[in-house]
């Protein structure tokens, strides 16, 4: 089930080295490392169509961040934007650009207990595609600093 258009050979090679397994305390009886397990995937019982009830509960209790690399098509930013908007949360800050490294990092809109952020030019794996902006975004969220 490894994803198309990516190459995980280096991870497979590294994590399947006997000395690496030993260093990270993997018992001998444990299976060889695979990036994705097709048996798990095929048999997985998907019990939810939407996370709306969960978000409605969570946003009444704790802070959240929904972020999207804006050139991903597996879970695209527009769908998550629609989802967050559908929660009808109070808007704290209108949509605006945020910056990192002298460039536009993306866009942010802040709701009561939920920040909606895009990372410009990042795909599905945001911290890999745009590591600098991703770290800045994380810091802003964790430490309640402006994006």
């Amino acid at each position, binding site marked *: *089930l*490894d*994803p*198309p*258009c*990516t*190459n995980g*050979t280096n*991870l497979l*090679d*590294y994590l399947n*080295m006997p000395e*690496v397994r030993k*260093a*990270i*305390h*993997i018992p001998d009886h*444990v299976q060889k490392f*695979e*990036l*994705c*397990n097709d*048996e*798990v995937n095929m*048999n*997985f*019982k*998907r*019990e939810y*169509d939407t*996370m709306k009830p*969960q978000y409605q*509960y969570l946003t009444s*209790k*704790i*802070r959240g*961040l*929904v*972020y999207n*690399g804006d*050139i*991903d*098509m*597996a*879970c*695209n930013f*527009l*769908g*998550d934007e*629609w989802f967050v908007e559908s929660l009808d949360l109070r808007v704290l800050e209108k949509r605006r650009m945020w910056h990192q490294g002298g460039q536009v990092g993306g866009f942010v809109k802040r709701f009561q207990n939920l920040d909606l952020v895009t990372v410009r*030019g990042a795909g*599905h*794996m945001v*911290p*890999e*595609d745009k*590591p600098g902006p991703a*770290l800045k975004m*994380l810091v802003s*969220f964790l430490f309640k600093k402006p994006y």
Partner: protein
Amino acid sequence: APAEDAITDLPGLNHTIGFRHFSGYLNGAQGKQLHYWFVESSRDPANDPLVLWMNGGPGCSSMEGLLAELGPYQVNVDGKTLRENPYAWNTVANVLFLEAPACVGFSYDPNDDCRTGDDETSLSNYLALQDFFLHKFPEYRKNEFYITGESYAGIYVPTLAVRVLKGQKDFTINLQGYAIGNGLSSYELNDDSIIFFAYFHGLFGDELWNRLVSHCCTGSRASKENCNFYNSYWPLCIKSVKEASDIVYNEGLNMYNLYDDCPTGTGGNFTRYEADLSNILRKHKHHSDLLQKTKERIVQLGEANLT
């Protein structure tokens, strides 16, 4: 911290690191053993927040997160050595990578039972967290705690966060928040929006777009309220959506990064972040079957004048 889980000599690590790291197992439900890899903050581990990270799938390993995305070291193309990641998240937080559910990566079930689902996964993850905070790293129980992840973790993260909050009476964790990147939050909205996304990015033109709007939307204006690309039963809508979906997912574009190359590698026909995609395909397969059966029936009936 459990001395037996400490990583003392990591192969391929040729630079000095300023943090401690650990790898071992946490107890999930029914004896399941979930592999974790914990990297302490390189700044102030005692006071920095603790961030749990999970990759998606379902069925994919969070080692991708550690060794290719946000961890402090990343695997070089030689598959043997590691390089430093200056943007690692453990420069500001303690980061716990959890491989879940059982059978993913190095996690295992003692009975080799890999069948599971959303609820059992969130329960196992919750029990693993209890094991982490109660037995392995009790000194971190007071730290601010955040649950984060990517892709299908759009399901893992909220379901786990709800469990933690609802379980606070019995077991208190200092949960402060959650963060989800490119997460699956709604199949319907994800599938509806990708059609707009694809048209707005020029992946198909007006001819197909006009057919989509004409067959799948009410009124003449396309909007998220007016259009149903997700589960229409109108055959012409289904046909148009399939054409659009093929362009997005099946004709060689890199669905994870529209403007990046599509290198060949370990990738197969399916995807580790397939939650949304498999459902699109499954739905279309159902629709295609329906369409095909309808066509066959029409031919059988000899209803040549049917339009």
